[in-house]
């Protein structure tokens, strides 16, 4: 039910931005970009203390007239920004939190993809999260990411098949270590269940 979702790289350039009202995309780009001011400030305020126990969820960033902007930062300083319609009172803090957590999981799946080069813009046919929910029964009832491979960058000319992957022996070795991925096959093997 978010209006716009953005994944921002550590260096503050956008990795992924998608918004529902596509006609006014630029406005959301600006909104996400300006919200980074607050994210930066919050991150620097957090300081270096207690890196392990740090809260990843940053809470409400900007109170604008029509939208609410929420932020989330991973341990590798990748930022997630979500823009929600102000009029939508159904979304409480807890819902926002869980949306972020799911977004984080999806992002982790993208990072697990051996064909994805960390730092490249994420070009996925599939939204990491559905930006709007037209269907009744919760914002995520329609999400069916059938396979992790669906999140592959579409532009990549690599064939997704067992033969082309021979060179990479284990995808676990390719995981970014700083990201809070649970190492073990069970949590990541079926991301659909998580959603």
């Amino acid at each position, binding site marked *: 039910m978010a209006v716009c979702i953005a994944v921002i790289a550590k260096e503050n350039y956008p990795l992924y931005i998608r918004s529902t009202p596509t006609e006014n995309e630029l406005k959301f780009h*600006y909104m996400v970009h300006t919200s980074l*001011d607050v994210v930066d400030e919050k991150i620097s305020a957090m300081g270096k203390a207690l890196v392990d126990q740090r809260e990843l969820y940053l809470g409400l960033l900007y*109170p604008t007239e029509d939208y609410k902007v929420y932020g989330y930062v991973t341990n590798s300083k990748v930022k997630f920004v979500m823009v929600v319609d102000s009029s939508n009172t159904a979304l409480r803090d807890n819902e926002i939190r869980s949306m972020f957590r799911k977004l984080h999981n999806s992002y982790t799946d993208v990072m697990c993809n051996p064909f994805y*080069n960390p730092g*490249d813009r994420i070009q996925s046919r599939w939204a990491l999260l559905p930006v709007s929910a037209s269907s009744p029964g919760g914002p995520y009832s329609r999400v069916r990411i059938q396979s992790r491979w669906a999140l592959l960058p579409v532009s990549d000319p690599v064939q997704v098949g067992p033969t082309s992957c021979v060179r990479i022996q284990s995808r676990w070795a390719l995981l970014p270590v700083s990201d809070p991925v649970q190492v073990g096959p069970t949590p990541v093997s079926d991301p659909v269940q998580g959603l």
Partner: protein
Amino acid sequence: MSPTQWDLPVELCCRPMAFVTLTGLDVVYNAVHRAVWDAFCANRRADRVPISFKVLPGDHEYPKCRPKRTSYEWYIPKGILKTGWMNKHLNLVPALVVVFYELDWDEPQWKEKQSECATRVEIVRQSLQGRNTKVAVVLIQKKTPLPPGEDVIASERAAALCNACELSGKSLFVLPHTDHLVGYIIRLENAFYEHAQTYYYTEIRRVKSHKEFLNKTTHQLLFVRHQFKIAFFSELKQDTQNALKNYRTAYNLVHELRAHETNILEIKTMAGFINYKICRLCFQHNTPLDAIAQFRKHIDLCKKKIGSAELSFEHAAWMSKQFQAFGDLFDEAIKLGLTAIQTQNPGFYYQQAAYYAQERKQLAKSLCNHEASIMYPNPDPLETQTGVLDFYGQRSWRQGILSFDLSDPEKEKVGVLAIQLKERNVAHSEIIITLLSNAVAQFKKYKCPRMKSHLMVQMGEEYYYAKDYTKALKLLDYVMCDYRSEGWWTLLTSILTTALKCSYLMAQLKDYITYSLELLGRASTLKDDQKSRIEKNLINVLMNESPDPEPDCDIFAVKTAQKLWADRISLAGSNIFTIGVQDFVPFVQCKAKFHAPSFHVDVPVEFDIYLKADCPHPIRFSKLCVSFNNQEYNQFCVIEEASKANEVLENPTQGKMCLVPGKTRKLLFKFVAKTEDVGKKIEITSVDLALGNETGRCVVLNWQGGGGDAASSQEALQAARSFKRRPKLPDNEVHWDSIIIQASTMIISRVPNISVHLRHEPPALTNEMYCLVVTVQSHEKTQIRDVKLTAGLKPGQDANLTQKTHVTLHGTELCDESYPALLTDIPVGDLHPGEQLEKMLYVRCGTVGSRMFLVYVSYLINITAEEKEIVCKCHKDETVTIETVFPFDVAVKFVSTKFEHLERVYADIPFLLMTDLLSASPWALTVVSSELQLAPSMTTVDQLESQVDNVVLQTGESASECFCLRCPSLGNVEGGVATGHYIISWKRTSAMENIPVIRTVITLPHVIVENIPLHVNADLPSFGRVRESLPVKYHLQNKTDFVQDVEISVEPSDAFMFSGLKQIRLRILPGTEQEMLYNFYPLMAGYQQLPSLNINLLRFPNFTNQLLRRFIPTSIFVKLLGRLRQENCLNPGGGACSEWRLRHCTPAWATEQDSVSK
């Protein structure tokens, strides 16, 4: 209506203060009155009571009070709040009228004066006409009053005056015009303030009393009005808490009113006023969160109350004003000490105000697009008779009409049209820009750089709409780099598109080209058709033609722009633009790469320039030149368009000068480095690519260093991180990402083709002339010239080594301190191919330890590289580490004549000095000679001849010498007596004849000398024979200056019979000697103990036999009597005796010397 109709009225925004009028003061002509007035108005700071004063004549007409209404039953209010009401109570109706009157208590004409004063008070009362306004009298007196109660006349007359004027005693004041005027005035003020508060209190009571007559059906407006009045009076009373409470009630009442299209503006206006008051008071009470909450509530309630659709821009204007007013209030509170935070600061409100102002503009644009033929209606429906409205927020053409249906739709239409036409003249952009710049200032303060940039973009766009293209460009250009550096390409593209329009409309050539370059580049997210349009335009511009207009531009502006472009074209000169690409992302990328990190000077330096275009169509460049830190190379690295004739023939897509989109073009450059640059770095300082040609327009893209623009460093990082496999490309094509810029290379000297060998026999010995043989052989194909040799201690080692190491070419003489540690540039001459050369070096090392020696051979050779003859300097160096060791160890010891170890020697008594030379050298040493140089305090007993001349010592062998010395008595010397020096002259056995010998001087240790009272020595043959007389003579010398009594006794021994004095006591004179002769007769063969001689000195009880035994032998070897002895017996006598006496001290070590010389 004024253009500022949305501004809040001044009387609403000011701080309400009690209004007090002063009468009877002649401030123009009376100095005393002037001073009093000045004291009232000067220095009104926060600590003075909040009163606003005004001087009025005594007969001033105050606003008339309307007759009191007895019943509200038939009264229908025409609006909420009259426009004049607030001003009336702030500036027209006083809370207190003060009558000033000059009167002293001891006035002689008291009666007349009193009645005049009473008349004045009466006049004031008349003009107030039934208002509750208080009246007070101040008597200005010349004398200082006495303390109360003492002046009887004063109290009497005061009571009389009060009576005459119908005043209470509390309203009569005395102002002595003396020194302490200001103090009196302040006291007066406080009294006035109390009166004013009472007045406002009664006013509040009066308004409240109306409430009971009101009913909810017809008097809803009055509820709001009364509540507002109560709150306003409370504020005048300075009771802000109650004021806030009443305003809040009023606010709720406003929203309870029935809203309709006809009265919505009035409701919103009032709601805005009350909201403003509430927020203002909340900030004043230092509860900013309440203010913000109230404001949010206000906005939420009013947001949807748009009113008439035809005038919806009015709603946007009103909203904008609400935000702006709140922002102003917030900002003011911050100036008074409130602290704001990043996410809650006035900037947001200004931003929102700007947003609504933009919306107002949009709405106005769509609603007010009347044709020019429509004239402004006449008579003006917006004009009123008085020029102002009666009630706040009503329409001028239907004032006071409360009915919800429009009585006169025609009139309404004309009114709306009038408002719309007025709106058309509003300078919206100006309003928006002001608000945005306010917001920018705030966000700058609260660390929101990105928000600031965003607002600046909006400002720039607004300037663009306002047709102020110069300012628009300036702003956009300023923020562009922020978006570029953070890689927000979509945003950058949108900004660039606007900037391109601006530069087109102003016909700014350079800007137009720069923005086009970037919009064509890879950072742009434009679609291909857009890109090809821009590229076409760019090519047009380069051909010195006008570009097509940008889409969505104002038609009139385009026309002006086309004229400007036409002027530009006709204008000659300044057609070359150099654009540095460091700060943006152009559509041509460039990378320079030297083939190697270093080049030998005899091979040509080669490097590639890679170019890649990102534009949709191929593009030609006219020139490419590369600049280096050494500008002499620039001329070799230029590619220029061939002549015009060639150009026609060349296929444009195949040519070298054409960049095909997406393909990497590689251009190879080659030059021969100068020999002077050997050891230096050659750096590419810039690459210049010229697009277009000089006949049209020429754009030179300038890359600093080896290429790369604003985005390339991030891309390079990303490419380095990538583990993606790149698809194979045909040969001679490369992946752009895989090219790594290498903008500098080292020029190093040519590889030498000679061999340098060192021949020596390590280790070196201390102080030796160590021989190092250097062999240089040329393997070059041609003759080498100017061969020079530098040899010696390698620089950069311990400084002490430099002083203790000396190098020479001549081994025949010993070198001293003046010789250097490093011999530089010894000319050796020329060498033919294959020729060999040998050079001997001699090194003298003064200290032990390891040293690094350097041998450096340099030469010149002629070489042909790239058909150019160059002279190369080559060099080769060899280093060797040489250990220096001591050649030998020398040990020295003192022994007695009996070869017993001596810790000290006795004066005048001979002793032996033994030296021991132990060779430590791994090579054989020849001791050429040795010499003992005695100190003056020592004398020798026999000749000091060297006993080790020309002895050759192998490793570990030693050579010893022994010298018999005597030390004359010197008395007691502290630390012993110097012995002298021992000098050894030596050389390596393998060294050549002409190599000088080395003299090593060893300082001998000092020896402790002691005096002895009596010295005994014995004359004794070296051996005895059984049964053969053995004469022994003991010499007793007195070494003291006294006569000594000596007791001597000889103890008998089993092995000997003897004759001589067995026990004797005798005296020895100072310095003389006594001889004692004994004849021993050995009885047994073998090593036999002699009969021991006991000497007892009476003067020196310490002198014991122990000491004595050091000097005299205690045993003797007795031989058997053989045949030879019998022969010898034939020939007895003193001769034999004299023979062994001569050799008495040599036999023991003669054997040892044999072992040494072996």
